């Protein structure tokens, strides 16, 4: 019995969200507000159970020496953040923001350097001639490599900012935008399947689990 009740609850919320496609209506409004409110609470609980409790409370309990006492810094920064509740000293929260923004900058440099710049450049070092199983196979593989290198270079030039895109730069940056457009089309088409899968999942729930039609 309870499982039937909860299936109906799930079906109600599914239909309420879908009704949004027609137009805004009380059902969608209700579902939306419930969703925002309950998910906010959900993430508060999740943050506490999986992050703050083990990292701060657990840290103070199990860590020793400097590793334990250094946790005073984030605790202090947290207090600074909460000074926003007290108007006259709320500017102190900027210190905490400053730390997080500094982290963004530091992680930005290290992450982009290690994760993107060097690997992507390295991956573009492709030979223009690839020996294959036959002449045409070799031709195909070689042309592919040449296309990747040229496409990458042309796309980089599209992002050249400090000069007007005229003349040679104009030509190559236009080639770049052509590559970008083909890529966007392909990437769009590639995603359709995954998105339709999600809808199939929901429809299957309604038809199979709720209405028992199929």
């Amino acid at each position, binding site marked *: 019995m309870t499982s039937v009740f909860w299936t109906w609850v799930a079906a109600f919320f599914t239909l309420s969200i879908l009704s949004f496609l027609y137009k805004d209506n009380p059902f969608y409004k209700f579902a939306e507000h419930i969703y925002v409110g309950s998910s906010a609470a959900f993430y508060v609980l999740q943050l506490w159970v999986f992050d703050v409790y083990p990292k701060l409370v657990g840290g103070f309990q199990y860590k020793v020496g400097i590793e334990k006492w250094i946790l005073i810094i984030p605790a202090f920064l947290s207090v600074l953040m909460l000074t926003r509740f007290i108007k006259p000293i709320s500017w102190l929260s900027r210190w905490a923001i400053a730390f997080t923004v500094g982290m963004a900058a530091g992680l930005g440099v290290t992450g982009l350097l290690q994760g993107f710049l060097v690997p992507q450049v390295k991956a573009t*070092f492709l030979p223009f001639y690839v020996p294959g199983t036959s002449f045409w196979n070799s031709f195909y593989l070689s042309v592919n490599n040449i296309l990747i290198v040229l496409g990458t270079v042309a796309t980089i030039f599209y992002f050249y900012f400090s000069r007007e895109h005229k003349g040679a730069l104009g030509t190559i940056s236009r080639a770049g935008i052509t590559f970008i457009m083909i890529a966007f089309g392909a*990437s769009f088409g590639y995603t359709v399947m995954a998105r339709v899968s999600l809808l199939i999942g929901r429809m299957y729930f309604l038809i199979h689990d709720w209405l028992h039609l199929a």
Partner: protein
Amino acid sequence: MVPLLLSILFSLEPVRNVRAFDTPDDGGGSITVTWEIPESDTFITRIEIFRMEGSTEATPELVGYFLRPQTQFVDNTVEDGIPYYYFVRIRSDSVYVDSKITTTPAISKAQWFSGRRLPALIILVLYFGFLMFYIFKAKTGGSLFIRKIAGLEAIDEAVGRSTEMGRPILYILGLGFISDIPTVASLAILKRVSKKAAEYEAEVIVPCFDPIVMVAAQETVKEGYLEAGRPDLYNEGQVFYLTSDQFGYAAGVDGIMLRQRPGAVFLQGLFFAESLILAETGHSIGAIQISGTTAVTQLPFFIAATDYTLIGEEMYAASAYLSKDPLALGTIKGEDIAKMVLVVLILIGTLMETLGIHWLSNFFALF
């Protein structure tokens, strides 16, 4: 006697060249052990690594094992400064043979510089050099050209049109945390938008996904209003937190779009699958939409559903472009020079690969 006999039967030879040494480029507490497996050993079912602390006389302790042929083991259970000796045992079911014990002690210690990352350091120093050079050059005068970026030109127009229609402006910072650079870049654009809005006395609504981003956005909008000379118009309720659930946030923002009917919608920052939900709803209410993200997978959806899109790096160039700050523009020039260098590097690299010289690509692989 029996094991010995069997070992002859299976011709189980001990592994050779067992070496143990401090793991390079690490923070200590680690020793790497390597060895070679003789080709005749085809019956190995298990490899065991034994360690002796202090001297070769100490009792051996099993520190690790493999169920398939491997030639390297990293022992992360050692303490710095203590000499260790190792030997490797290979087994074929119940039969086993031990290798010789390592002769030189392995002592773990932490390094002060990661040699592995030298190429990264060189690249970073060179790039920072370019950037700093152009910053100083900008300081000593000389104007810098920057090509037109349509999406940024449209910002003032969008704010103006929205004000004319008597509608608010909706600014969406995406799902990024403040530790993501695209979010910080988006805040720079938000500052410009809120300054313009304050000049026109229009309302800016900023629903947030992350509480720290919310706090930073509140400060940014306040600063924008202050720069426009209208701090009186700012009210903290304009910038508020919704929820940290991806689709809960999308549902909430959709609701705001439908009910407050903004005339201009900005989608700037880090976006994931919700990008199209937001952009399509924004389109359905007839708002002018200016989007921008560095998330390559979401760019096609923004291109399809919004009026203007800042593609990748254009978003980072936005703050320099909008503020016309010569120092910031200097870094844009530095970026462009770095691009030229990279293109030349890529062409040299491909040429070398074509000729079968792998030196450059190995250098880049050092990470």
